[in-house]
């Protein structure tokens, strides 16, 4: 028997393929059943408006951002700097930063939200500021330590992605891509495809997927 060693593992494309193929069912946030409690919002529903402060103390209002003439869409990314799936897209790869940059001059405003509670090691100004600096993130990380905004959206994971149209409708909700592992990137980036189609005035083919990641660290 061999115990695991931590280094020297090649990333195998077969593992990526296996991971991408993993299908897991989901209890969907935002499901509108008959007489059922709302558990958040999803594609096709209105994005809850919010005002939150970023790591520099500057307030950001979703309503105000959408009202700006230059804004064509808003991407909201649930964030936790110490979650391996966030690290996958910010540290080991530059998925989020690259996408935000790609669409910045097309009127897409990107913002991250950390809904971890006050006592958690991954929250607070200091930890998130250092992540922004370390990963050279060009967009704000908003602090939602009460978890109120996260719960309104029904965001459960980091990263969990919402694309909001100019009129405030959520047009995409779910995963950033189609690889649920903590290491490998998927071959489909759903947010990229949603933004491309939305800005071109086309119908977004995949509007909902199951997000993958760590739990959002809500207060009990």
């Amino acid at each position: 028997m061999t115990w695991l060693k931590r280094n020297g593992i090649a990333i195998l494309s077969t593992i990526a393929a296996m991971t991408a193929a993993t299908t897991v069912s989901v209890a969907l946030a935002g499901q509108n059943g008959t007489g059922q409690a709302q558990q958040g919002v999803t594609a096709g529903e209105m994005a809850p408006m919010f005002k939150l402060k970023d790591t520099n103390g500057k307030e950001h209002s979703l309503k105000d951002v959408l009202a700006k003439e230059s804004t064509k869409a808003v991407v909201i990314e649930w964030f936790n700097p110490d979650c391996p799936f966030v690290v996958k897209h910010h540290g080991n790869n530059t998925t989020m930063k690259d996408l935000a940059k790609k669409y910045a001059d097309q009127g897409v405003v990107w913002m991250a939200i950390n809904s971890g509670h006050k006592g958690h090691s991954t929250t607070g100004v200091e930890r998130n500021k250092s992540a922004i600096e370390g990963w050279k993130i060009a967009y704000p990380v908003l602090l939602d330590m009460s978890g109120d905004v996260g719960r309104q959206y029904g965001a459960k994971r980091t990263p969990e992605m919402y694309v909001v149209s100019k009129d405030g409708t959520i047009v995409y909700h779910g995963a950033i891509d189609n690889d649920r592992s903590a290491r490998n990137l998927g071959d489909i980036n759903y947010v990229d495809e949603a933004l491309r189609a939305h800005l071109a005035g086309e119908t977004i083919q995949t509007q909902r997927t199951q997000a993958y990641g760590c739990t959002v660290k809500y207060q009990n």
Partner: protein
Amino acid sequence: MIPRPMMIRSAMGVVAPAAAVLSVGTPAIAQDAQDVSEAALIAESTIVQPGQQLLLGLHFELAEGWHIYWDGFNDTGFPPMVEWSLPDGVRVGPMVWPVPERYISPGGILDHVYEGRPTILVPVTIDASIPEGTSLQIGGEVEWLVCNDVCLPGFGPVSIELSVGPQATDADSEATLDRSSPIGRAAARLPQPVKAVDDVPGLHLQWSNDVATIRVDGAKALAFYPGAGSSSLVSALEDATADGEVLSLRLASPEMDLSTRAERRLQGVLKVVNDRGERWYLLDHGKDGLRTPEQTETISRVRDRLERSPS
């Protein structure tokens, strides 16, 4: 950073097939998965016979408070995955997963997890043509996620060497399992595959208006753990447990169903608690009725072997 008790440090150890031994090291801050979890490949026996089917186990030792994930429904995380490296003549079947525990995090987040010392069973078939005396190195690259208040990704190789002994007799291939071994303990947590309603005393299944109703006469409590093959539920968190005889599971509307199933299907583990104790059943239920669940043959075989094993 949060101090975490009972950190486990990687340990090189000679481990008997029956029981893994882990050294518990000095408390430290967990920075990677190996600080709080270890994975190993174990076998019910390292001596195998040509033509034999045997069980390996992907075994984890987890620090207190940490968990890994089941392969069915989870809001977060992912189950351990293995990319196998196999010698000629060795075939590995799909992994067989013991019944997990429901794990709810603040914010209505539901996962199904294992804590402690879980073992996921790996059925292996040794080709009959492999000659006695052959040494078989079975290995793989494992990727897993271990979480408590934070999550850490783990990956690395596991392997085990098996020796091919003399040709099996029928009696050998149906050997009993050691109930106290990690593999035996995992076998004891396999659900009973349900082929017909009568397999579960008092079971009634019904579909109506996108609600699947499970009733078990005499049950004190029921729980359903949606499997990887199930249609999406509106809320496994709210619907999938009940005190009493009835579970009503709302199925997500087709446009909200992310499971990409072509048809409505309720697949997963049903837990029944009654006067006789706790039992688990593996269900695969469509609108047209029950189907034989996947892995029925493998699971039934393991359960039969356990049944015949001395207590």
